[in-house]
């Protein structure tokens, strides 16, 4: 009898402990490690290298958050997730943060009960075609065979686009990106469609990139955004403002190289507030004043992260386009740090 009581008390205590530590920030701090959901491998965005070190655009965001929260960009456990497991992994608490080039949509935000932290990459669906097909616009693809990944939003976008433009197409169903490239280069389809960033990487990896063109039409909006669970606004704020800090850092010219220098104090009060030399913004969500400084030093500001992983100096060679600062004609616009 006593034993039963003991077990009951133990279980209850466990449950209470579980509910008591509902704050993700406290959990992460107690664990000393950020669990970050990433893809199982996508060129430029997240992939382990030969030594097992994860690198990429999404990976850099995870590292920035870890630096802000834990003070060390290496304190991240990368959890590879598939298209099927990513949302459950986040909802069940297996990961604290999902940075897995996930498109921000109404139903994912509202129905699946996630909070998107802001767009870190503006993508869109495009077409890759053989140059000798003689096609220069997606509008000329009437009757073409198109390789398309099944079960994705790209499949729906494609159907909608062709329907709206009164054209027909023959779909060739493929399972993975690698299979799509294989089918396309083997000539099984005239065009391959997926996110434009993926197409650029695919084209760059071909033996003859000059024989393939990416058509100018972008037929969908794919704002890729990191996300967290609904219901923990403090944690969501930390993620959102880490992203904003990276974007604002580029706008104000704070780089990983000069951040320490600028942190000694500048004429610009906004830079001072970001780097924690003026005011104490970090304390408002439970972090120290230097949180943003560490996030920026982890992998550089947004522009540096972009250039290092997917920018024009990398083999993938993506132009900034929509992902330029608002002052440069892009869409990146961080709210003020005040």
């Amino acid at each position, binding site marked *: 009898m006593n034993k039963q009581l003991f077990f009951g008390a133990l279980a209850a205590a466990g449950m209470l402990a579980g509910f008591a530590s509902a704050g993700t920030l406290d959990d992460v701090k107690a664990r000393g490690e950020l669990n970050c959901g990433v*893809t*199982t491998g996508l060129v430029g965005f*997240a992939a382990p290298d030969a030594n097992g070190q994860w690198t990429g655009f999404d990976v850099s965001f995870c590292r920035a958050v870890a630096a802000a929260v834990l003070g060390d960009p290496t304190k991240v456990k990368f959890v*590879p997730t*598939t298209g*099927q497991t990513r949302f459950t992994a986040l909802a069940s608490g297996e990961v604290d943060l999902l940075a897995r080039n996930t498109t921000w949509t109404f139903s994912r935000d509202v129905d699946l009960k996630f909070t998107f932290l802001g767009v870190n990459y503006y993508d869109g669906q495009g077409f890759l075609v053989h140059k000798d097909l003689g096609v220069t616009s997606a509008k000329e693809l009437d009757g073409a065979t198109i390789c398309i990944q099944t079960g994705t939003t790209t499949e729906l976008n494609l159907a909608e686009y062709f329907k709206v433009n009164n054209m027909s197409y023959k779909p060739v169903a493929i399972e993975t990106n690698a299979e799509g*490239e294989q089918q396309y280069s083997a000539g099984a389809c005239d065009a391959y469609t997926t996110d434009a960033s993926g197409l650029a*990487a695919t084209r760059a*990896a071909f033996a003859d990139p000059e024989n393939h063109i990416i058509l100018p039409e972008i037929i969908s909006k794919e704002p890729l955004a990191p996300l967290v669970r609904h219901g923990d606004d403090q944690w969501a704020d930390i993620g959102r403002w880490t992203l904003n800090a990276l974007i604002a850092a580029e706008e104000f010219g704070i780089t990983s190289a000069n951040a320490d220098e600028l942190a000694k104090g500048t004429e610009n009060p906004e830079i001072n507030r970001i780097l924690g030399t003026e005011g104490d913004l970090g304390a408002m969500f439970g972090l120290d004043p230097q949180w943003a400084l560490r996030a920026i030093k982890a992998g550089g500001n947004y522009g540096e992260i972009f250039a290092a992983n997917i920018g024009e100096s990398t083999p993938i060679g993506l132009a900034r386009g929509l992902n330029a600062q608002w002052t440069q004609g892009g869409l990146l616009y961080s709210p003020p740090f005040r």
Partner: protein
Amino acid sequence: MSGLHADSTRFVRDTMLAEQEPPLTERGAVKWARENLFSGPLNTFLTVVGVFALYLILKGLGPWLLHSVWFANSAAECRETVAADFGPGATGACWGVVRERWAQYFYGFYPSEAYWRVNLAFVLLFVALAPILFAGVPRKVLWFTAFYPVTALFLLWGGSIWVPVVIMAGIAFGWVAFRLLGPFAGALIAAIAAGLVPVLWWLILAAPVAHLIEGWIPLGIEAIPSAKFGGFLLSFTIGVTGIAFSLPLGIVLALGRQSDMPLVKMLSVGFIEFIRGVPLITLLFTASLLLNYFLPPGTNFDIILRVIIMVTLFSAAYIAEVIRGGLAALPRGQYEAADALGLDYWKAQQLIIMPQALKISIPGIVSSFIGLFKDTTLVIFVGLLDPLKGITDAIRGSFEWKGVYWEPFIFPGLIFFLICFGMSRYSMYLENKLKRGQR
């Protein structure tokens, strides 16, 4: 000379004719081909079609394999090397990806300075298996086999040495309970206690005790979390553990299904039919995702352990049915003979029924094992990096190896083939050995 026999007949052979070669069409390769390849219109037609298909495969694959590149650090470098050596437009296999990333195929993201632990565990696996697989090995090695699971656990995951010691202590306590209770309380209660004591020990006391001893005498090696496991290390960990535990569990389930006790029978039938009616992927999803909702938050229930449990249960249900087939194939007389000898249920199973039933079931059991081992690649769906797709996706995720398509399938495929072929050969060896002197 007249009157002699030789005159009256024109010729008499007085020596044997030397043996002649058979006609050209009845010997050697020609005969073999006539009998096996061109024995009728249909066979001739099939032979021609077969040869043509073979030619097409070789024509497509031959140059590609002949132009293999081993020393290259990226797919682009492979293409350049092939173009430089065999002219533009030539295609060649790019094994540079295997050369550069083989360690990830075998060890996943296990720290390279700790590879020796995996290698040692792998070698010891065969030492532990030897007395089970081959009769010629000294029986004393079985003691090592008994300790192998905890040894491997310690080697692979590391951490404090007291964890495996405490786990083994649980089994020892179970044995002590069995011995102490046996004389007083009867075999059944002693057996239940022998099962219950270790479980209670592991669930409640094991962790604090291990922690306590660790506090007094810290002893151990670097702990390596499950997230670092991948590739064939992961496949072997899941496959070997699943195989080892699903066979006994399958035997128990098969016996349970044949039991006269309604509760035992119902539970066994329900379990077997449920598991066999559900795809493995569903079980894996349950293990990786649903359990997280059920368990209290903060519970860290290792993902590999969860997957192993699911794979074991899945395989056990199939093995139970295979063994049930073996049991059904035994003539009724064998059961009656056991009864006539006055053997009780367990003795009869141990001495008469199971040895025969298992012998009949060997091909089916090994098929299940091969299936289980190959099914370990499905763990990619719960985010574990299996050698076939998980590691390959990760490798293709770096720009150097993007666009390498067939090689990362062929390499793990070959290794899987070797292992599965080995298992199948062993099963044939075992069948032949057991056939000797029987019926």
